[in-house]
Structure formats: C-alpha cells, structure tokens
C-alpha cells in the first residue's frame, strides 16, 4: 500500500519547497513546519515501504518521458536503507534548525531550499535510470550552491558556493561523458543485434545497463565506469576534487550537517554502489583478478582517507576539522567498495553502505554539536573555546559519543574467537570491517597499500577528533562569552542521533546480508564473509590505533604533557603545507581558475576577436563600406535606409536581368 505512494517520497518535499518559497512568511513558524511535515511524511512512507518489501521485495515503477528515456522509481534494499537514512537524518536536522535558524530573517528561504535539497537527494536515491539519477544529482548540486551561499551578502560565502558548484561540475561533466559513452555503446550492441531492450524497459534503466554491461567491450566499460567514478569523486569530495567540501561550511552549520551526512556527499558513494555490477565487470589488467575500475576506486578512496585526515590534524576551525573528517571517511567508503569489491563481490556494497549510514548518524551528530557550540560561543575557532564541558553537558557528552564512534572504539570479542558478539560503537562495526576487508584484499592480491592507508588514517582520525573535543570542552575557557546549553529543540535531535551513533552497529549482520543481496539478480548471490579469517592482530589493530589516537590527544590537549607550539613552530614546512591544505586552493582557484582560464584562455580569445577578426578583417571592410555609403549618402542626401532600398532594388533588377537571360518572362 505504501509502495503505491513511493513517488510522494520526493514530491512531498518538492511541494513543501514551492509553498514555502512563495508563501514562507505567511506560514506558521516562519516556514519551518511544512518542510518538516513533508520530510516526516517521506520518512513514514519510506518506513512503510521498508516493512512491505523486507526481506526480498522491491518497488519498480516507470513511465516514458521524452525521446527514448523514462522516469521511474526503483526501491531495492540498497535504495531503501538510503531512503530511511536520508529522510530520518534530514528530519532531525530540520527540527534542530528550527532552533538554530530561529533568528535568521531569511528563514523561509532556508527551509524551502533545504526541503528541495532533501527532495533532490531522495530523487537520486530512488531513480531507476542513470539519466534521472544524473538530473537529481545536478539538482543536489544546485541546492548546495544555494545553501552554501545562503548568506550571499558575505563575499566568502558567495565564493565558496561558486567553488562548490564548479568543482563538483568538473565531476559532473565526467559523469555526463560516461552516460554519453554508455548510451552510445548500448546503441551499438543493439544495432549489431547482440542485445535488445526488454519490452517495457528503457535504454538507460539500471537493469538494462547491467545486462548490457555483460556485452559491452570491456575497455569501453572501464572508461564508462571510470567516468562515472569521476562524477563520484567530485560529489563525494575525493582527491583531487576534494577542495570544495571544506569551504562549503560558509553556509549555516545545519547545511553543513545536511551536506556531510544526509545529502550530497554520500551521493558519490551511492553512485558507485548503485552501478557496482558495472564496476565489478571491468577487466583486471593491473592486478590480476581485481577489476581495473575497482582498483582505481580503492586507491583514490584509500589515499583520500589518509590525505584528508592529515589536514584534519591541524585545522583550527571546528567545522573544517569535521569537513576533512568527512572527506576522509568518504574515502573509507570508496576504499570498501574497491577492496571488498575485489575479494568479496557485492558484499562490498553492504560493507560500504553500512559505513555510509553509520557515518551519517555520527557525522550529523558531530556537526549539530559543533553548531550548538558555535551557537553558544559565537566563534568557529577551537583555540577560542575551551572549558565548555560544565556549561554544555548534553552537547559535550553527545559529541564525545560521536567522536568515539568516528574513532571506531569497541571491543572485538567475536574477532578474538570468543563466543560472544562484538561490543562497540557504530563506527567500530562499520569502519573496522572496512579495514579488515582491506587486509583481506592485501592478503589475497598481494597489495597491502590500501590497507596501510586505512590503518594510518584510522590513527590520525582518532587524534584529530579527540584533539577537537579536548580543545573545545576541557581546559580553561578562552573567550569572554558566557555560553549556555542550547534549547531542547536542538539538544533532543542530538540525543536521538547519539543513540544511533552508539547502537546502530549491532544491526551489522542483518544489514550486510540484506543490502548485499541488491545485485543478486545480476551478479548471482554474493558469497558470505571475506573468505579468510584474519589474524588476531589484524582484528585488534583498528581498535588499538583508535585508542592510541585518543591517548595521544589526551596527553597533548588535556594533560598538556607536550606543548605542540614548542615542538612545531609555525614556520615548519610540513605544518605549513598541511595548514595551507597542500596549496589546493591556490592551485585550483588562482592558477587553474584565474590564471589559466581567465587570464590566458579567455583573454587570448578576446584578443583574437577584437584585434584579428574585427581589427584586421571587419573594421577594414566596414570602414571602407561606411565611407563608401557615407559618400554615396552625402551625394544623394539620403540616409542608409534609402541605400538599403536601392540595394534591394539592385537585387530585384539583377533578378530580372537573370530571368531575361534565362529565357523567361
């Protein structure tokens, strides 16, 4: 019954967007109520569908659209878990925003845009074809542009919004190129008679794509999937298109929470997961048995996980630390798809999605806690915070829970061959599984580099997140403000998210088997487990580095056993490199954006236009002609129009002469 209303999952927030945008101020609570109700409605429908289709059903609806494309809905296990997460987390963030945005005069616009943002993300999730997926994906990009630039009168916000749109656009173009290439290849195998679209299905539907992928030239398939992955790199902030994400916190903190947890950045990972059978079908030319595209996904993901974590260590803006954390954690999700995909087939989808959803809970929590802190102290700089624990107990405790989850703290009892289940935070279940899969990949394929990335990044993760926590909540207050705990409308969502950050991990076995079965119809049933029983040290290592990171931060930032400023001077080249974010903003904006594009390419075009085409060719002609016309006009004492008339008459006269010659008339 709920399945019949699946389209409402997207339509409700869209309707809320339109109504709130145009009626905003006239609506109850300054426009907040309608979007919240709409997203709650989407959540309820999603939940209803989940209970209807669990454990092995799915929803498919489709209508023809234009040309040979369709518009449709596909809700399979992969989609439904995303739907539940997106609607649930987005709902909590919206409720929190009632408090957080209460004083902003543009509140209706805020809620209208976040409502559309959520709708666009939901559109991505339940698309049944890659074109509709792309369209929703672009609308997600639009909404992020609008929301990052929400305070558009701030130049930095306007610049960050533009950067977000343009950098992700680079990825989007690659994605679009992938769609073009896919379309051409499918048409080619249709034209050669080897493939036909099932009647009632459409060319770019996922089911058609997966069947076609088995017949498409393998090299072409590698190109297609890598171009798709290019889109994912842009959207999910993977190296080298990661730079927009840390700048994206120019918007309200609640927007950051939406972008980093529920919407937008997870879309890239979801794209790879959604088209996983195509990635898995690419040939393995570099490492035998490892599909090329998955290898690229694994390496980019692993590298990004480590690379972003190094920058997280030195940032002083509370939101920027969290932003790099997101980039890093998205790297883990990609790493999972790549490495586990190579050794455990479609199980990789379950493993990666589990971290995606777990991360959504604790990252939303981290951002909302950061928002609560910023709301209270009026600054983003953790150096100006300190000693907040006593004043903001709920925020402090829930943020500590989120940090534990991010650091992956837990006790791997089952992993130690004990007859009990594991106990730990959500991040412990989701991330440690990824690290173990990276090990399994290394063990089976003899390539331990992704594993090394993952382990070192885990240590850094733990260090930077507890550094943040200790600096914000412990020690002496370093500002003049008198902070107080946020109102209930803000703290209650924190508590709910904290529950999920702590306990969602226990759903791990059921989640894995449910979501990994999404592609059984095309890839056959995924085999259970990673194939090998990892040694005890491998099982313990992620937890050891997590605890080690905590202890390091505890020692430095709580006990003050070391004064970092004495060890690392501000002139230290490594420190400078990290603080300047590996000079990515300089290279991206100044060199590529301004120097190469604007100063060189555009200006030389302008030169050609003005000086060569116009200067040498046209103005000479026009100069001569106007002179001639002017002279003639002066003689005839008429204007240009009379000349025009005479030219036209000349034309007609010419015609008559030609006709005469031709023998007519």
């Amino acid at each position, binding site marked *: 019954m709920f399945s019949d209303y699946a389209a409402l999952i997207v339509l409700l927030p869209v309707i809320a967007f339109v109504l709130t945008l145009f009626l905003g101020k006239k609506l109850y609570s300054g426009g907040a109520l309608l979007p919240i109700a709409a997203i709650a409605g989407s959540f309820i429908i999603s939940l209803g569908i989940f209970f209807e289709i669990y454990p092995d059903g799915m929803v498919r609806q489709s209508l023809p659209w234009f040309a040979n494309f369709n518009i449709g809905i596909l809700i399979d296990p992969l989609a439904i878990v995303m739907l539940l997460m997106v609607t649930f987390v987005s709902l909590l963030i919206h409720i929190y925003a009632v408090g957080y945005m209460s004083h902003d005069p543009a509140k209706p616009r805020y809620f209208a845009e976040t409502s559309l943002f959520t709708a666009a993300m939901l559109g991505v999730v339940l698309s049944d074809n890659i074109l509709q997926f792309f369209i929703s994906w672009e609308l997600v990009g639009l909404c992020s542009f609008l929301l990052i630039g929400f305070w558009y009168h701030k130049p930095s916000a306007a610049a960050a919004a533009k950067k977000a749109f343009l950098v992700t656009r680079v990825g989007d173009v690659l994605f679009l190129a992938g769609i073009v290439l896919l379309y051409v290849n499918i048409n080619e195998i249709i034209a050669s008679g080897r493939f036909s679209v099932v009647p009632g299905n459409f060319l770019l539907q996922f089911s058609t794509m997966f069947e076609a992928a088995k017949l498409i030239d393998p090299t072409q398939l590698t190109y297609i999937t890598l171009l798709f992955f290019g889109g994912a790199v842009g959207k999910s902030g993977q190296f080298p298109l990661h730079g927009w994400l840390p700048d994206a916190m120019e918007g309200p903190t609640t927007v950051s929470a939406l972008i980093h947890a529920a919407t937008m950045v997870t879309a890239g990972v979801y794209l790879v997961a959604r088209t996983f059978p195509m990635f898995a079908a690419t040939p393995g030319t570099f490492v035998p048995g490892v599909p090329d595209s998955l290898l690229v996904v694994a390496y980019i993901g692993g590298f990004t996980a480590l690379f972003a974590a190094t920058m997280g260590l030195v940032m002083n803006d509370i939101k920027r630390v969290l932003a790099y954390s997101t980039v890093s954690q998205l790297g883990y999700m990609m790493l999972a798809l790549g490495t586990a995909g190579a050794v455990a087939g479609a199980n990789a989808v379950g493993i990666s999605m589990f971290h995606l959803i777990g991360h959504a809970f604790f990252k939303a929590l981290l951002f909302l806690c950061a928002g609560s802190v910023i709301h209270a102290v009026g600054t983003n700089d953790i150096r100006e915070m300190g000693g907040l624990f006593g004043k903001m107990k709920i925020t402090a405790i829930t943020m500590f829970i989120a940090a534990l989850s991010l650091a992956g703290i837990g006790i791997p009892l089952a992993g130690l061959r004990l007859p009990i289940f594991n106990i730990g935070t959500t991040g412990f279940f989701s991330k440690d599984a990824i690290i173990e899969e990276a090990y399994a990949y290394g063990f089976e394929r003899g390539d331990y580099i992704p594993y090394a990335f993952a382990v070192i990044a885990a240590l850094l993760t733990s260090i930077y997140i507890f550094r943040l926590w200790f600096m914000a909540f412990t020690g002496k207050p370093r500002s003049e403000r008198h902070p107080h705990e946020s109102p209930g409308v803000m703290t209650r969502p924190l508590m709910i998210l904290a529950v999920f950050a702590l306990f969602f991990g226990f759903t791990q076995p059921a989640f894995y088997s449910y979501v990994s079965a999404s592609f059984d119809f095309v890839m056959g049933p995924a085999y259970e487990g990673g194939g090998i029983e990892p040694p005890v040290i491998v099982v313990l290592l992620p937890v050891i580095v997590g605890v080690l990171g905590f202890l390091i931060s505890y020692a430095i930032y709580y006990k003050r056993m070391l004064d970092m400023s004495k060890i690392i001077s501000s002139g230290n080249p490594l420190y400078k490199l990290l603080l300047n974010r590996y000079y990515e903003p300089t290279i991206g904006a100044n060199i590529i954006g301004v120097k190469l594009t604007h100063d060189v390419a555009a200006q030389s075009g302008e030169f050609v236009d003005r000086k060569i085409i116009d200067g040498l060719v046209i103005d000479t002609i026009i100069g001569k002609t*106007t002179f001639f016309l002017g002279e003639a006009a002066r003689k005839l004492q008429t204007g240009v129009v009379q000349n025009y008339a005479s030219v036209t008459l000349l*034309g007609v006269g010419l015609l008559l002469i030609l006709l005469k010659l031709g023998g007519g008339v």
Partner: protein
Amino acid sequence: MTAYISLMIAIPLIGALIAFLTKTREQARVVALVSSGISLLISLIMLSRFDTSFTGIQLDEIHSWIPSLGITLSFGVDGIGMPLVLLSTIVIPLTVIFAWGETKEPNKFYGLILLELTGVLGVFTSLDFFVFYIFWEIVLIPMYFLISIWGGPRKDYAAIKFFIYTHIASLVMLLAIFALYFNAWQITRTPDFNMFHLLKNYPLLEGWLIPNVITIKDAIFIGLLFGFIVKMPAVPFHTWLPDAHVEAPTAGSVILAALLLKMGGYGLFRVIVPLLPFSDSPGKMITLLAIIGVLSILYGTFLALAQRDLKKMVAYSSISHMGYVTLGAAALVPLSVSGAMFQQFSHGLITGVLFMSCGVIQHSAGTRIIGDLGGIAKHMPKLTFVMLAGFLASLGLPGMSGFIAELLILINSYANLPTFVILALFGIVFTAGYHLWAMQRAVFGTFNEKLGHIHDGADYEIASMAVLVLLIIFFGLYPNPVLNMMTATATPLVRDAAGLVGVIV
C-alpha cells in the same frame, strides 16, 4: 485550405501600421499587445490543430502572386517551423510587456517590434524561396532602426556593422537561391520558386563553377550555408552580434537573440540538412559544420569568460549555445537534429530572460559592468530570483529546457562526431564558470554603496521574465509537446544522410 498563417502574419503588420499612426504611448503599446496577442492566439490554435504524427507540411495555404516567375504566397508549418512560430508569438508579446515603460517615440518603437514579428513569422512559414528571402530581408530593417534610434553610445557603428554583415550574407544566399531556381527551370521548363521543388532538384545539378576548384553544387551549398551561419551567428562570422547587443535596447536584444538568430538555425534544418547528402563532398561539409559548431561553443564560452559587460557576456553565451544547434544538425541523427531544434526553441526562451535581466540592471543601477555592480541582490530580490533561474537554465541545469536540448545533442551526436562531442563536453565546466562568476560578482556579495539607491525591476518586467522562466521549467520537465513534432520531422529529414560521416571522426 486554412488561412491561419496569413492571418497571423498580417495582423502584426496591420498592427504596426496602426501603431505608427497612434499619437500616445498608451495607444501604441495597447495596439502592440493586442495584435501580437492575437498572433499568439492563432499560433496556439495552430498548435492544437497540428498533427504530430504527420511528418510533412501542414496547415498550408497557397495564394498566387507572380505567376510568370512562379512566385506564390505559400505558407505552411512542420516540426521545424511550428515550434519557432510558437516561440515568436510567445516572445514578442512578452517583449512588449517588458518594454511597457518605453517613452522615446513609443509609436515607432512598438510598431517596429510588430514588424519584426511579421518578418520572423514569414521566414518560419514561407514555402516559396523568393517570399522567404523577402521576409528574411524585412527582418533586417526594423532591427536596424531599433539599434540606431534607441541604441547606446556606439549605436551607429553597431547598426551599420549588423546591417552590412547580415546583408552581405543575405546577398550571397540570394545568389545561391537564384542558381537553384535557374537550375530547376533548365530541367522542368516551368518557373517555380517553391522551396521543396527547388531543393528536390538540387541533386540533378552538375558541372564546375570554377573548373577543378569548386563545383556548382558545392558553391550553392556554401552560399546558402554562409547566409545562415552568419545569422546564427557562428564563429568566425560572429563579431557583429556582441556589438549589436551592447548597443541595442533591451527589447531589440531580446528579439535579436531569441528570434533573429533562430532564422539561421531554421535555414540549417530547412535547407542545409536536406541538401547535405547530395552535395559533392558531404563528408567535408559535415566536418565543416561540426568544426563551426564546436568552435562556436568553445570560443563563445571563453569569450564570455573574458567579458566585463554583463550584456556582452550574455551575447557571447548566445554564440556558444547556438554552436550546439550547428553541432546537432551536423551529426545527422534524428534525435541529435531534433535536439538541435529544441535547443533553438529553448535558447529563445532562456536568452530572453538573460537580456531582460541585463536591461533591468542597466536601468536600475545605471551600469552593466560586472565589476562596478556587486551585491545588488539586497535591493533587487525579485530580479535576483528570475535572473538566477535564467542563468541556471543557461548553464544547462537539469529540470530546465536547455539541459534537455544539450543532452539530446551530445548523447546522440557522439556516434557520428565523437571527437567534437568530447570537445563540447569540455566547455560545460567553463559555461558554468562564467555564469556563476558573473552572478557572484554582480549580484551577490557585499552591496556596492557607490551604486546609490537602486530599486527592483518593475512588476511588468519581472512578470514577463517570470513567464519565460515558467516556460523554461515546463519544457525542461515535459519537452514532448514540441519535441515530438521536431523528432517526427527530423526523422525523414536525415534519412538520406544515413551512413554519412565527417572526414575527421
């Protein structure tokens, strides 16, 4: 036989004459709105009578004119003409509404706008090559006056440049038309200017124009092509456009970009695509078209990036977007060609919003220089809203009409012109770049206090832009009403071209 088309063409012509004779602004603008409104009504009736499943000319009518030369007043529409008729009758009334506040010689101003409507409708519906050419030339005159009377400081230079450029192109096209005409005469021994008859006889032509250099067929083809691509305009024959736009009044710019440029694209579909397979070197011609198309896309994009004047930037964006039309036409695949037709329709709507935005900003802030603006969103929220929508449409945001067109062109052209499509894709990022850069600098950020007190657009200005935005979104979500008729016509149009590919692929 119906008389919708001749009525639709005649009413704005009569309206124009009445408008010229009116004494007050009030009378002139009401006449303009009513007569263009009636044309819109007629085109909507035509749309409802239009049979999408029929691929040929329909709603046709024929009146004898000069029998001795075989010239008739014959009109009709198919999937190429009908959408452009609709576009013209939508854009002109909205332009009249937008220019509701015109004070300088309003009777002439509104009269000339109506004359433009007559001209473009004639071009899009004439089935007689001679009459087609007359309408083609008629369009020039009111635009020349719109620029030279209501234009900016360098209006004389711009007007004369516009005039010379397009007139030379027209004359070359006229020669080619005559050549076609005489050729047909040689064969059939009956004078006949019917466009389809002339095109049908083209394959029978033979011989050299200049021995061993260029054949008669190729010369005719290039002559016609030249006439059309200068109008579009395509690089390198484009430099008249930015100058014309910079100096033209807003209404003139809207008509120029939304309708006059479409005449060039119309010519591509009506004349060039059917002739192409029968020219003596189709491969080279396809390559030529593809190069022109992609060059226009990329060159227009980079030039747009270099502009400081918002309106000039928009002008270059037109060149870039019209490049897609050429590219899609050159690919000769049914859906790439109908995508190119849709791009014409879509660009007409989008560019209207963009030029209107420039007009409102110029009027309110007194400048269009991007660097001198800044933060105007604060005082112009309504304008910001519609302008942002127009800019997003222009950069190809899905959900808006431009995306559908560009997607269809790119995705369907790749099979025949892969290299060119990859190059065109490359431009997309930069297209987004200049649009957002301009919005960020001119509209968002801190308000530039030097601008003093600025006010939002007038309600009639915002309203006409909002209507265009709604249409852009409507056709972006549901393109079928016009796309289906385009595809129906495009499919037989490229049948003769099956198997043709460019030289460089």
